[in-house]
């Protein structure tokens, strides 16, 4: 037993040592300058790898059952499909839909209501949230300190084996910052390497006319907060941005989500109320609920014919980035399995 473990440790160390530093982050040529300051906090392959291990490891939860990836799966562009709202530890149900994670380096604030101000401190929320991972950060640190795998991964990433919350948080953030989605058909068209079909072109024109003010190209979000006229949900009574600002002008405003990768991230909206894109478009054309905080351009709904809707959906489908979703550098790190086997 003992020697088998030593052998495993050695092979893991060899694997880690063999990992070449990869240039992880390059700004897609057609993207704006990111919000995250990569000059001040440059990405580093060893930290990214440590962050990836942590992201996929249920060790972050109280009973070691839930990892970040339980709610943010790589195959769903790091969202959680099927579930309108998230499911956490002991199958407890949260009150918001787990958003997809990509292009986080361009966001100023995180969460549907903007409660979090920096990607590095975001992980503290799910780790401590009773319905998500329900764990104390100090207990997580104790668990990690007992693991040889993590001791060596922290050493490689930070130069010593002292495991602190700041290092843990920075590593997870570094992995998340590598999740850049900029390789959909739309991007190829934008860069002159492909072209839209006639239907996609019509959809693109309608999109620019009706949607782009909020879902701004090329990120497909301005990441501002708006009320897009959803009927208030009576189950969760979620006031969105108001909960943070206490300003009545922010009632029912939520962070505008990017429209990239929608094929992988259903259901839609902060409470996951719509399963299909056709339902979303019917909402914008027929079901807008006006209120004092409704966004100006949506006041009277968006006039769209059945064909217009089909055209917009065709455009939205050009935003699905298969290369991103199936990127092997974003998947479960198999080293974790080996490390936990036979214990």
């Amino acid at each position: 037993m003992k020697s088998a473990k030593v052998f495993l440790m050695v092979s893991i160390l060899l694997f880690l040592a063999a990992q070449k530093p990869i240039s992880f982050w390059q700004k897609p040529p057609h993207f704006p300058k990111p919000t995250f300051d990569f000059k001040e906090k440059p990405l580093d392959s060893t930290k990214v790898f440590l962050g990836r291990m942590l992201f996929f490891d249920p060790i972050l939860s109280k009973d070691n059952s839930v990892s970040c990836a339980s709610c943010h799966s790589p195959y769903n562009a790091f969202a959680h499909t099927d579930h309108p709202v998230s499911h956490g530890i002991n199958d407890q149900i949260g009150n918001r839909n787990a958003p997809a994670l990509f292009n986080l380096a361009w966001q100023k604030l995180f969460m549907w209501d903007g409660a979090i101000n920096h990607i590095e401190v975001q992980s503290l929320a799910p780790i401590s949230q009773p319905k998500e991972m329900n764990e104390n950060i100090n207990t997580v640190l104790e668990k990690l300190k007992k693991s040889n795998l993590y001791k060596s991964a922290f050493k490689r990433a930070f130069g010593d084996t002292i495991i602190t919350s700041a290092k843990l948080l920075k590593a997870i953030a570094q992995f998340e910052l590598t999740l850049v989605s900029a390789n959909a058909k739309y991007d190829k068209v934008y860069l002159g390497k492909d072209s839209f079909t006639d239907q996609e072109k019509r959809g693109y024109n309608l999109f620019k006319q009706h949607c782009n003010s909020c879902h701004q190209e090329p990120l497909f979000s301005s990441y501002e907060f708006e009320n897009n006229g959803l009927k208030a949900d009576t189950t969760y009574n979620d006031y969105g941005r108001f909960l943070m600002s206490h300003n009545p002008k922010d009632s029912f405003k939520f962070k505008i989500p990017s429209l990239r990768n929608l094929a992988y991230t259903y259901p839609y909206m902060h409470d996951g109320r719509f399963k299909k894109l056709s339902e979303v478009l019917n909402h914008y054309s027929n079901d807008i609920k006006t209120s004092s905080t409704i966004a100006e351009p949506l006041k009277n709904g968006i006039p769209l014919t059945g064909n217009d809707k089909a055209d917009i959906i065709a455009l939205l489908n050009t935003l699905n980035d298969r290369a991103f979703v199936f990127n092997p550098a974003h998947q479960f790190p198999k080293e974790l399995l080996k490390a936990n086997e036979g214990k």
Partner: protein
Amino acid sequence: MLFNVLVQAQNSISIKFEPTFKQVRLEPNVAYPYLSDSIQFQELKFYIGYLQLYQDDSLVAYSPQTHYLIDIHQKQAITLSIPSKAKFNQLRFQLGVDSITSVSGALEGDLDPSLGMYWTWQSGYIHTKIEASILGSNRNKTHFTYHLGGYQFPFNSLQTIQLSLDQTETIKIEVDITAFLEHKDVLKQSVIMSPKPASLALSQIFAYSFKVSQK
């Protein structure tokens, strides 16, 4: 480590923050008379930021760390070094964590978010944490839980404090929370755990607790 490269002769000034209640040094989990009952403190912690010594309006020295977490469970002094002939007559500092620091990601040392002074579900530091229970026959057991803080306007709760003092090598700042705990606006509240108007109001009242100790 910081002090072994002395370019010019330096003097050390030591600054201690000493929480008191009804004129006695406050210790955790000890019962003190309070109103008609008694009170016992589990937590009293606060952040001191950008501690500086001034002579009138010129800066003489500043603390080696930007922020210090003062905690009744740990007694520590902050040491500043000043040029040996320098004079000072004023101490300035912030009570809490400023907004720039609050949006800078995961920090280390006294600002480590695992020290119980960081709100996890909403970014931002708790500037002052006071947790106490009131024990009394007619109250059963009541709790005070004041987590005061937040950096976003209009509830930015950071306070700036200036105290005039005489030059000495050891400065003792008494943090007398008696008036705070007997203040009518404080008595109205028993639980504050997020940035909001009450958090700002109580932070302003708490800031009056700081005095230069004459003892």
